[in-house]
């Protein structure tokens, strides 16, 4: 494994010229911070989620290394305009590429990795350039920082939306509103 496996040209391009850099007025945009406890890097995401379901705009600020910054930049380009479900699909596909699997114990107490098969329809495109990070395990946390933060932001956006629609619908039809948990699950 060489440095070129890690620092592909497209990664360095996104590092030098990050896309969607900056912030959005919050509210209405949702602001979510992510920290890498390993190195002190931080990412701040600003996400506009229309009706709790579509990422209409995204901005990124914070500081980090070339891997975390380029990953965040590529992520912002990939999820802008997508539905929450599509964005979550991308998150799953990206984390699968980073070899992050859910672990569980099998019947004999051995830990087995459960590979969450990403939807084969999901194309990572430019993000494939980050595949080399897997060979440098310490850096996987750098690459996934913004993705984990996005997942948290989507959770919050959807739960906030669910609560507000529930509040609205209970005002309109007392006792008839959908429960917030149903909204989240259905989203």
């Amino acid at each position, binding site marked *: 494994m060489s440095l070129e496996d890690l*620092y592909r040209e497209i990664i360095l391009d996104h590092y030098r010229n990050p896309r969607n850099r900056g912030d959005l007025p919050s509210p209405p945009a949702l602001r979510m911070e992510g920290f890498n406890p*390993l*190195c*002190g*890097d931080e990412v701040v995401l600003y996400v506009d989620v229309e009706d709790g379901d579509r990422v209409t705009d995204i901005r990124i600020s914070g*500081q980090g*290394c*070339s*891997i975390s*910054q380029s990953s965040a930049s590529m992520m912002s380009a990939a999820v802008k305009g997508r539905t929450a479900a599509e964005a979550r699909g991308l998150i799953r596909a990206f984390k699968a590429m980073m070899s992050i699997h859910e672990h569980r114990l099998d019947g004999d107490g051995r830990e087995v990795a459960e590979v969450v098969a990403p939807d084969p329809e999901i194309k990572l495109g430019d993000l494939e350039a980050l595949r080399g990070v897997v060979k440098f395990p310490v850096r996987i946390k750098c690459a996934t920082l913004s993705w984990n933060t996005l997942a948290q932001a989507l959770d919050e956006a959807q739960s906030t939306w669910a609560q507000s629609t529930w509040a609205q619908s209970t005002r309109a039809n007392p006792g008839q509103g959908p429960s917030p948990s149903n909204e989240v699950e259905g989203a």
Partner: protein
Amino acid sequence: MAHGLIDTVKGDFPLLAQGPDRRRLVYLDSAASSQKPRAVLDAMDNYYETTHANVHRGVYRLAEEATAAFEGARAKVARFIGAPSAAGVVFTKNATEAINLVAHSYGRRCLPAGKAILLTEMEHHANLVPWLMLAEERDVELRYLPVADDGRLVLDDLDRLLDGVGLVSVTAMSNVLGTLNPIRRLADAAHAVGAVMLVDGSQYVPHLPTDVTDMGCDLLAFTGHKMCGPTGIGVLWGREELLDSMPAFLGGGEMITDVRLDGWKPNVLPWKFEAGTPPIAEAVGLGAAVDYLTAMGMDAVRRHEVELTTYALSTLAERHGDDLTVFGPADPEARGGVLSFAYQGIHPHDLSQVLDETGVCIRAGHHCAKPLMRRMGVNATARASFYVYNDESDVDALSEGLLSASKFFS
């Protein structure tokens, strides 16, 4: 430069020896953990192969020999730090546990109500979080001595900050900036207001001659693995009267003189603070590390590091100019061999990754000192740190590695 010292030293460290199929290793992360000389590894192997039994338990000869090896290590450590007796030397897991011991024991039970604790902005998380945790439990005010731009403590407001303080806890040497703090002056000032003085010696004890009486402190915490010893063993030294007045920390075997179903009586020092089977082989290893450093002479160790730091500061400034910013005091006599730096705006992670390709190991990150990082206005720094086995060629390798990184990221 003490070439005589270093020529013999490098060969003592198996991991640093350059085998035919091994690339040159330039280890510049001793502030995180030092490498181990053969003498320490042999002492631990020999202990397990010839002497091991539990300590302070059996009356058979093997158990007596194990106890003698363990207590012998304690006596060596006591001499190494100029302690008046071995009874004040408590073995812990590491410096972090030593500080937690003080926070739990002294902090919860002895610190008078209404008294504040004085720390500094440059402390390692190990000397911050235990006190933050204490402040969540008890109504204790935490105060901080500020850090100036040159990396030194600002003492202008010391008298005001000390008013009403019951405990002062300060690092003797910053693990980020290398700053050597005026411990004696702080200890005297602390005592003048009746406060207890705890010193975090994790970075100091491995690199400078240490005498707890000269330091003037009441308590000193440090760790074995940064001073050629193994991981898993640290030390809390304390004045005996103070340790005697402090309640026990962890409960269990060894730390008692009597146990009944309705109560217990604590053991005498130092065992009162050593619950359970201690890290015996690790203590023996630390004893061997102390022997190794003592044979070299701590004055010689310090001289070597001042010379190497002088060389590093001037060489790096000469070759890299404004591309490189070294944090901390500019005077090598006022600091240890710990160089935190920023280079051309390249993130420390990326620097460290490129340097690794050339066999140069440096630390990148916040160095467990996030408040200090915020004070410095950075998220992370790159850090190169020296020990007895480093020489000018290691500094040159670092300097070359920086140029490679520059090419890569420009």
